[in-house]
């Protein structure tokens, strides 16, 4: 590229985070530190039944025996887990019947983010379970979903109201001993979403949760559990933005999905947490365990993610294809800029016969960022006729960033068909000049090329989300240059 193009791209890469602000709502926060007392207090605040406390303590005791993993292709200073507070909730927590009862300042925060709850309810028919810091403050459309027997609530409520379901499925996909961060999450998770789709029910609307990290120095540990019973269907949307701050914020969520016979779960994420300043200071650490079990025959789980935020992203939404003929899909766009680091990908574990998986990963690196795809395709001995198709593409913008691909294949059945394609490309000066020559600015030209490159993933997103995802990419790459 010529020096002017490089300069332009550097300018684009150097824009400030648009959604940086802190809301001034009084928070109730547990003292910093982590021990059994803190966990007991946390469980008591949340009025949890005994089994939940026991589960947490068991996870905590196991966590104490574990070491923080360092195998990923990311670098960051050590996290002091005794220096975090494990619970923070808006102090005035009323029981809400409608959005009108929500704290006006909180509402204003949502408005700033451009995710007005009212608008979403009115215009798009999306039921929103908004998580502000760690506690659900608004749950909507509950009644309508209730008529169909669908449970969509905060995780805390589910623990109190549907303990039998929680007991049966919690930790059944991601055991509390699974990994360092999952164990920590299991011990101290604050809240999250719970969804249960009964037999034969097709959820008529997209279920959506906006996560938000707000109180300074509070690690956030969400827990999400989605169960689609036999023949059930649900599409779930998760989206995030976070306010600007100086301390690094740890985020270690766990998401578990269970699809029984003939059930389908579609899980879409648009993630835009604060990535830190140009030097990478102050961004979110996003260490997430997301896993789905296609437990029943003909079941299907589809992950779609658009990752543009966080200082460090470390996540591998995975599928365990247990049921015969089950299908796992992973569609991902991961964009890194400035000093962001992402190590993300998926695991497709084929256990059942005739299981199929598809992996489409699109990495985009700009600035001085490092972007790694890491994926495992495992075909077990008894998985007859398993098939996988993987496509991992990397796009480089500028010449100071890096793209890495780590594909792992473990195949124990000779009937398996596994295909892997990988490409690395650069946004070409010729492409940009061609678009310039059609009257399109370099900024918009980069947007067009990048969005075109991600098209295969965007088409998997629900319509409104696809629009939001395109906007996010634009914000991440273009923003203030005019």
């Amino acid at each position: 590229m010529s020096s002017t193009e490089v300069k332009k791209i550097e300018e684009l890469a150097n824009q400030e985070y648009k959604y940086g602000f802190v809301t001034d709502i009084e928070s109730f926060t547990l003292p910093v530190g982590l021990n059994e007392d803190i966990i007991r207090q946390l469980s008591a605040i949340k009025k949890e039944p005994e089994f939940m406390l026991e589960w947490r303590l068991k996870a905590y005791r196991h966590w104490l025996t574990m070491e923080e993993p360092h195998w990923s292709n990311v670098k960051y200073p050590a996290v002091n887990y005794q220096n975090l507070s494990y619970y923070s909730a808006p102090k005035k927590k009323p029981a809400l019947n409608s959005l009108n009862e929500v704290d006006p300042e909180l509402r204003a925060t949502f408005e700033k983010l451009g995710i007005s709850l009212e608008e979403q309810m009115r215009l798009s028919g999306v039921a929103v379970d908004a998580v502000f810091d760690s506690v659900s403050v608004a749950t909507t459309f509950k009644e309508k979903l209730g008529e169909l027997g669908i449970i969509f609530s905060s995780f805390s409520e589910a623990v109190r109201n549907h303990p039998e379901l929680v007991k049966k499925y919690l930790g059944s996909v991601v055991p509390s001993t699974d990994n360092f961060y999952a164990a920590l999450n299991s011990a101290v998770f604050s809240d999250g979403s719970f969804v249960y789709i009964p037999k034969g029910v097709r959820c008529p609307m997209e279920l959506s949760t906006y996560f938000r990290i707000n109180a300074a120095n509070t690690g956030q540990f969400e827990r999400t559990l989605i169960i689609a019973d036999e023949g059930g269907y649900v599409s779930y949307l998760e989206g995030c933005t976070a306010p600007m701050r100086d301390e690094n914020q740890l985020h270690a969520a766990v998401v578990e999905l269970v699809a029984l016979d003939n059930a389908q779960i579609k899980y879409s994420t648009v993630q835009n947490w604060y990535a830190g300043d140009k030097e990478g200071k102050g961004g979110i650490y996003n260490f997430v365990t997301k896993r789905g079990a296609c437990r029943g025959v003909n079941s299907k789980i589809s992950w779609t993610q658009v990752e543009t935020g966080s200082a460090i992203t470390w996540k591998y939404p995975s599928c365990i294809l247990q049921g015969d003929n089950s299908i796992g899909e992973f569609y991902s766009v991961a964009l890194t800029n400035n000093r962001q680091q992402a190590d993300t990908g998926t695991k497709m574990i084929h256990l059942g016969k005739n299981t199929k998986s598809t992996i489409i990963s699109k990495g985009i690196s700009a600035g001085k960022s490092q972007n790694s795809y890491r994926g495992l395709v495992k075909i077990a001995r008894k998985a007859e006729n398993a098939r996988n198709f993987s496509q991992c593409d990397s796009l480089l913008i500028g010449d100071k960033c890096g793209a890495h691909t780590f594909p792992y294949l473990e195949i124990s059945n000779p009937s398996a068909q596994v295909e892997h394609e990988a490409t690395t490309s650069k946004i070409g000066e010729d492409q940009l000049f061609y678009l310039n020559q059609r009257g399109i600015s370099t900024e918009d030209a980069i947007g067009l090329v990048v969005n075109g490159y991600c098209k295969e993933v965007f088409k998997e997103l629900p319509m409104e989300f696809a629009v939001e995802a395109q906007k996010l990419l634009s914000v991440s790459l273009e923003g203030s240059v005019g």
Partner: protein
Amino acid sequence: MLLEIKNLYANVEGKEILRGINLTVNKGEIHAIMGPNGSGKSTLANVLAGHSSFEVTKGEVFYNGKNLLELSPEDRAREGIFLAFQYPVELPGVSNTNLLKTAVNEIRKYRGEEQMDAVDFLQMIKQKMKLVELDDSLLRRSVNEGFSGGEKKRNEIFQMAVLEPTLAILDETDSGLDIDALRVVANGVTKLKSAENATIVVTHYQRLLNYIVPDFVHVLSKGRIVKSGGKELAVELEEKGYDWIKEKVVA
């Protein structure tokens, strides 16, 4: 006077390619620029469009009274300059429709005009497609991806039809075209001609000029226009070859 090039010099990677070009183009005219390989034809086309790999070292270019060399490539396009590329690039995942809609609206914004709504836009492009006998499916496909050589060139002329430039520069648009595609492309260009616009046709061969009849023919050699004339000059060149010009220059 639409375009006035005065004593233009330009380098590529430190090597001098254009050595004092003088050319004047008025509205309503078609100019053909001919010359052997390496004479600077494509360089001239790219310099006019503002490609950053080409460095102008001397001379002036005025377009509609404005100093063209001070404008960014996108502003030149918005001012009505269109380059039909010799090698159109592929843009995976970017549909022709999306590209053109963005381009049309960017140009309109620059000119202080209203954005075109989706229905009007679709109607307009459907109509323009007929001009170059392009299939509807090419609208939804990614720009130039998997297009044949002929389709790419026709697509360039289609984009030109949509963007309605004041000054169109066709850079070796005939290269790689069979005779049918050549006829289609040339018909498109001819139909787009009006008293309000001008066209510069850059070509190595005379055959395109059987279809697009130029008002003026200029012969480029070693970065200079060494001979100018009417359309009959192209025929003479075809008969006698470029060596004839070279000899004349030496003499």
